[in-house]
């Protein structure tokens, strides 16, 4: 089948979702109004609360939510065939992710731009707030461990990308200094920065760097993971303007360039989808598609991480309540488009079915490497770019996304440790350096605990990461639904995704628990158990909070 059909159906469906479904949500469910004074306008202070142009805000929201996760998840999930992944990404974006992001911004804007965590405490209860912080901690822990493994794999798989990946950090450092210290004009700096980055990508394949067989007794994969965490620890301690801010900016530009180039290449080359529609011949050891598909693809279909961005920064800058639709829903659509590109690359970028099966020889294989390999083949066929350069370009894109997430994730994890240090009066833990070391230590323990001595099996926790992420999404949807019940608005459109996501998460956790038990993998078994307990608590909280809200609503309408 032609991949253009996939592209048109997918993007068309998402566009329809934005133009029709989100409009319906805005009018009937959330009842947005231009008259409502948003927190950005009400508390404008030039720092936190700044009314911002909706296109700029959308750019932000989109680039902060779209990272490596919507690439890795779909590229693993196509092992069940292209159709399930395609349907879940498309329908998930329309009916789940869009509603979730849009709803999270709306809920926050209606409550003085408070974060979802605080809102969980206020709207649902203090117990839910406690569960929320535990779930966030687990998500951060897993995302850091997994992305460390992902980048290490990318660097080993494509030695030509080592120079551009680390070179990009140098470019970011220079951009940061040029803008912050020398106050140079942004368009000029961006142009020079992008040219420098692509020059590095261009020369990368001719200067491959591989680590020797053993670095201080560690295999190359383990050594890269350790190096990456040392780097991330240092980066997360630096002031944000030095590295994080300019790198985020370059990533944003990269995302737009990469996405446009990939879709243009699909249009020109029209590659054939070689992967089966539904893979009846899955490799041994592949778990059942239902429910694992729904947790393997979290970002790209629905992801709780977005709620943190929506309510933390985006809601403080929304100029009009009606902008929430464009920023939230269309932001999620952008991420869906990235996930769709990952699906096309991982299913249509191979010459034959046998080639595809060789890559997807067991569950957890393929993933981001299949995205790079397939995507590079499509890019090279569509644009005439040298295949090694195309592969390096996509590797750098994925590695930079994952790197920025690691840096931010480690920073957030450190804040949590510091907060615990203050709450429980543990002096040393409240300091940045020990808290960072503690964060790095826990992540490394997870990466090596799950992945063995060389850390290469660390992707086993990917579905577990998906479940935790979905739990977070469930909590956000719960906050939105409770608010809707209190306002007497229709709740079906947020309640249905909530029930579905929670049911699939619980189901997936049980299936994985059984799998880890059978393999006698006690480390992951314990992790799974912890997440499962959190999931059960979240479910109980949902039932209790909704019951309470319904009774309250009934009583107040009876009183009227």
């Amino acid at each position, binding site marked *: 089948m032609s991949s253009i059909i996939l592209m048109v159906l997918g993007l068309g469906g998402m566009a329809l979702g934005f133009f029709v479904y989100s409009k319906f949500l805005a009018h009937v469910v959330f009842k947005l109004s231009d008259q409502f004074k948003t927190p950005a306008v009400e508390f404008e202070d030039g720092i936190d609360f700044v009314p911002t142009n909706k296109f700029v805000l959308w750019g932000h929201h989109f680039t902060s939510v779209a990272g490596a996760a919507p690439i890795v998840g779909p590229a693993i999930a196509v092992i069940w065939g292209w159709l399930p992944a395609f349907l879940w990404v498309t329908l998930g974006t329309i009916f789940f992710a869009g509603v979730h992001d849009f709803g999270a911004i709306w809920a926050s804007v209606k409550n003085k731009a408070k974060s979802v965590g605080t809102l969980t405490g206020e709207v649902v209860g203090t117990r839910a707030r406690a569960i929320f912080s535990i779930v966030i901690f687990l998500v951060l822990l897993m995302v850091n461990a997994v992305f460390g493994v992902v980048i290490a794999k990318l660097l080993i798989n494509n030695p030509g990308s080592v120079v551009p990946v680390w070179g990009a950090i140098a470019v970011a450092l220079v951009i940061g200094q040029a803008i912050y210290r020398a106050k140079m*004009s*942004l368009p000029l700096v961006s142009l020079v920065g992008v040219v420098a980055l692509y020059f590095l990508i261009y020369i990368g394949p001719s200067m491959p760097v591989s680590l020797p067989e053993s670095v201080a007794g560690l295999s190359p994969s383990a050594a890269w993971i350790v190096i990456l965490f040392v780097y991330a620890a240092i980066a997360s301690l630096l002031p944000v303007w030095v590295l994080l801010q300019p790198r985020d900016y370059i990533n944003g530009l990269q995302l737009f360039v990469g996405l446009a180039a990939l879709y243009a290449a699909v249009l020109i080359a029209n590659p054939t989808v070689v992967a089966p529609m539904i893979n009846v011949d899955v490799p041994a050891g592949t778990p059942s598609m239902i429910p694992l598909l729904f947790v393997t693809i979290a970002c790209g279909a629905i992801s709780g991480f977005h709620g943190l961005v929506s309510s933390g920064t985006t809601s403080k800058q929304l100029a009009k309540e009606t902008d929430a639709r464009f920023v939230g829903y269309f932001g999620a659509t952008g991420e869906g488009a990235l996930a769709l590109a990952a699906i096309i690359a991982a299913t249509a970028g191979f010459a034959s079915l046998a080639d595809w099966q060789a890559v997807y020889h067991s569950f957890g294989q393929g993933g981001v490497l299949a995205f790079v390999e397939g995507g590079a083949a499509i890019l090279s066929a569509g644009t005439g770019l040298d295949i090694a350069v195309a592969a390096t370009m996509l590797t750098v894109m994925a590695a930079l996304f994952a790197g920025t997430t690691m840096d931010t994730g480690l920073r957030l994890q450190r804040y949590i440790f510091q907060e615990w240090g203050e709450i429980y009066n543990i002096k040393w833990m409240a300091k940045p350096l020990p808290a960072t070391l503690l964060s790095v230590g826990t992540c490394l323990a997870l990466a090596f605990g799950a992945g063995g001595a060389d850390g290469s099996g660390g992707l086993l926790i990917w579905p577990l990461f998906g479940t935790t992420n979905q739990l977070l999404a469930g909590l956000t949807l719960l906050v939105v639904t409770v608010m809707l019940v209190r306002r007497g608005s229709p709740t079906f459109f947020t309640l249905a995704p909530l029930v579905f996501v929670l049911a699939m998460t619980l189901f997936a956790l049980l299936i994985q628990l059984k799998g880890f038990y059978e393999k006698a993998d006690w480390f992951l078994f314990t992790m799974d158990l912890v997440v499962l307990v959190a999931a059960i608590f979240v479910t109980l909280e949902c039932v209790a909070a909704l019951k309470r809200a319904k009774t309250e609503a009934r009583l107040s309408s009876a009183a009227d």
Partner: protein
Amino acid sequence: MKNTLSRLKYLYRKASRAGADYYNAPYRAAIARARREEDDLFMLLVFSEMMGIPNPAGWYCMELQPLMLERFHDWHTRMGMERSPLDNFRCC
């Protein structure tokens, strides 16, 4: 020709503003906080002699005190002191 040039200039300025917005928006708060921490340290240095911390540049710091007056109230409340901590430097 002149028209096109001025139009291009206008577009460049507009793009530059939007770009700056895009670059700064997510980190505005973090940078403002970091800057405030630096300012707080500077405030402590300026008033250090009065608090019994020897400061070799104390004489020059005195000249700065009137300039810092406006921000003094914010500073001492932020530092957890309801009133001015200095005997001879009243605030609220």
